[in-house]
Structure formats: C-alpha cells, structure tokens
C-alpha cells in the first residue's frame, strides 16, 4: 500500500492523533496530510500530528467538515499518509503574508533550490502543487493567479474552514499553525496522477456580463449595464428581495472549454452583489442551475479511474456550499459512499483552487 487514509472523532486531540498514528504510522509515511475540525486547538493539533509522525513532513488545515473513505463527517480529523513510493520528493513552504508578493517569490526560490529546476521549467506531468490557504483572508485569487503566472505546474487546493464560525481559519505545516497564510507543497509523485474538477450545474443560456465591478471586494456593481442585483433577479425570474433564495441553486459561471468555473453570490449589498470569489469586468458569466451532485461526482471519479486504470488515493477539496446542499438533501452518506473504494482524505472548504479560485466545486487530486 502506497497511500492510506484514516479518521478519528475522539473528543481530545491527543486521543484522535493517537488513533491516527496507530493506523498510519506503519506505512512509514514521507508526507502526512490532515484536515481537522476547530474543536481541536490549532497549536495543539498541528504539534501533536508532527510529533506522531516525526519522520514525515506534515501539513494540514482547519475545516468545516471532513471527508474520509466512505463517509463525510463533522467535528473530527481526517488524515492521509503517503509512502516514499507515492511521493518521491517534496518541499513545503509557508507564505506568511498573503498580501506580500515577495513572500511567494521566496517560496518559489526555495522550491527551485530544492528541486534544482526553475519553476517555469518544471514538467507539469511530473510535479504537482498542493495549496492550503486561509479561508477568510480573501486572498485566493491573487495567490493562485500569481502562482499560475510563475509556473505551468498545476496547483490544486482548498481554503481552510472553521466549522462555519467565520472567525478564524488555520493552516498547518511541520508542527506550526499559521493564520492569514498559505501552505504550498510541491510534490514529485512516484505514481501517475490526474485532477478532478467537478461541479453540478447546467447552463440556463442566460448571459450576465460584468459591466462594472470592484474586483478587490469581489463585488459586481453592474450586470449587463444594470444594477447587479436587479440584473441577476431578472435573469432568475424573481425579485431583488427574493434573489438570495436562488443563490445556492443558481450561481453563475465562467465557461471555459464547456465547463463552468463557478462564482457563487454571497449577499446583496445595496444594488450590488458580493461574491465568494473574484469577478472581473468584462467576464461573460452564465446563469447556472444545480443538477445531481451524486451522479456527477460518481461520473467524474469513474472517468479518473478509467484514465489512470486504478486509484490509490484521492484528496478532495469539497466546497462547503456543496456540503450544505448535500446536508439539506440528506445526501451526505451517499456522497461519502462514492469514496468507499479508495483511500480518501478531504474537507469542506471555504473555496477551491484549480488553475483559478472557484466556488461550489470539488477539486480533487487523484493518484494511481
């Protein structure tokens, strides 16, 4: 076995880490990835996890729900261990200040020194990046876009959660907890890998062009030359007052190669709409309608399995809005079962990253 997952819902961090250690330490992991509820004190959980796997590089973040093989759950910790066969080499860097461009330059310089290759020259078929980022800093777009400018290597990841308290999220690396920060892990897997980006929406054929926006606030001021709230409500066929009731079922998406990159409305403020991720003037967004998440996710996993031949592990960054929809529809057990046949680790995120920053999506890294 190259990759193994485990979970625990014990009351104390010590008991949970002890349970995980018993399950995962026999793999002699080179890397351990964990996602933990905020019921565990941040400083404590990251230190205990590092102590439990002293030979491994250990990274993780806080969550709003966890995912393991066969189940979604809350108030626990999910972890995945990778052997040296699964991850041949890796480097972990912390971007301490998300608003300092030089901080990312420093992380990339460290990657180049470690792998002895310029980041711009890395073969994206041989390397992959993981990104775990503060979920409340509102800095995901800038970071993932700058990463994308600097390298062709794909970085995939999620924004940390805090059990829907929206107070403080945490990212962890090698025994330390960080806020307003991001963990970057550049991996050289020893096995083939692929990506899943799945969202469950269909195009309703109505275009909302962003004609005025405040990109720094994730605010659309005008759609199609009209106040954004009125433009959205008109497209949905409702009133401005009732428009927020449609946000989860009818987000908007930027279509690229036939697939939406979802931007989810958060709230109406004045005549504007605030979103959970970046919107740029000139973007032509399509009004979407939700479809069958279980069926779509099953199909995406099956496609990945066909592509790779087999699956030895899945890291799942699943949007909290998807989790809330699954919970509303009493489908969390069905969603968990989709991952019953594979070692899986994941969490409910405050945002997902794959090439860009997106919402209401599951981004997954899948290993053969």
């Amino acid at each position, binding site marked *: 076995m190259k990759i193994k997952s485990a979970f625990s819902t014990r009351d104390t961090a010590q008991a949970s880490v002890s349970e995980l250690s018993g399950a995962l330490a026999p793999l002699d992991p080179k890397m351990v990835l964990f996602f933990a509820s905020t019921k565990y004190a941040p400083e404590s959980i990251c230190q205990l996890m590092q102590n439990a796997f002293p030979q491994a590089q250990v990274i993780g973040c806080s969550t709003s729900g966890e995912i393991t093989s066969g189940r979604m759950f809350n108030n626990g910790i999910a972890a995945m261990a990778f052997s040296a066969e699964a991850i041949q080499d890796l480097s972990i860097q912390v971007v301490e200040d998300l608003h300092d461009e030089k901080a990312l330059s420093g992380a990339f310089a460290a990657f180049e020194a470690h792998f002895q290759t310029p980041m711009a020259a890395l073969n994206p078929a041989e390397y992959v990046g993981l990104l775990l980022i503060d979920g409340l800093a509102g800095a995901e777009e800038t970071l993932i876009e700058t990463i*994308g400018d600097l390298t062709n290597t794909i970085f995939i990841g999620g924004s940390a959660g805090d059990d829907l308290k929206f107070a403080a999220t945490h990212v962890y690396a090698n025994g330390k907890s960080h806020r307003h920060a991001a963990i970057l892990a550049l991996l050289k897997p020893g096995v083939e890998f692929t990506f899943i980006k799945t969202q469950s929406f269909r195009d309703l054929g109505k275009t909302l062009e962003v004609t005025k926006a405040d990109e720094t606030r994730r605010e659309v001021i005008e759609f199609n030359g009209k106040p954004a709230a009125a433009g959205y409500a008109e497209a949905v066929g409702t009133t401005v007052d009732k428009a927020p009731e449609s946000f989860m079922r009818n987000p908007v998406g930027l279509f*690229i190669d036939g697939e939406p990159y979802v931007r989810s409305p958060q709230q109406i403020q004045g005549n504007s709409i605030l979103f959970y991720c970046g919107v740029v003037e000139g973007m032509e967004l399509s009004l979407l309608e939700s479809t069958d998440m279980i069926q779509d996710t099953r199909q995406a996993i099956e496609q990945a399995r066909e592509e790779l031949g087999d699956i030895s592990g899945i890291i799942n960054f699943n949007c909290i809005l998807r989790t809330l929809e699954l919970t509303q529809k009493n489908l969390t057990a069905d969603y968990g079962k989709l991952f019953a046949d594979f070692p899986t680790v994941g969490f409910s995120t405050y945002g997902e990253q794959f090439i860009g920053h997106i919402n209401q999506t599951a981004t997954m890294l899948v290993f053969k």
Partner: protein
Amino acid sequence: MAGKIKEMIDLIVRQRADGNPMLERVIKSKLMLKGVNPKKFDSNTPDDPAILQKLERMMHTLK
C-alpha cells in the same frame, strides 16, 4: 493602434505552452480567469491599455 492584444496573447500561449495542447488549454483558462477571453480579440481589436497591462504583467512574471 489595434491588434496588439491578440499578438501578446499568441506570444504568451506560444512561449508558455511550447506546442503542448494541454498547456495551451491551461494558459487560455488562466487568461479567461483574469478577464481576458482570447476568442474576443483579433488583429482589428483596439489596444486597451488595461488589458495590455495584465498581459505584460503575465509575461514579465514568467521571466
């Protein structure tokens, strides 16, 4: 002046993808997420300083 945006988009895609179709798709996706849809620009498109600045930044960053 016109056509410079398309020229820069083509240059970025050519330099960065180096003929790899998968990378071409990824780079075009990155451009679209920045608000620059490659399909909307041709040799007659007027040069928009704001868009040119985004593209120049992208070219500069990779160097």
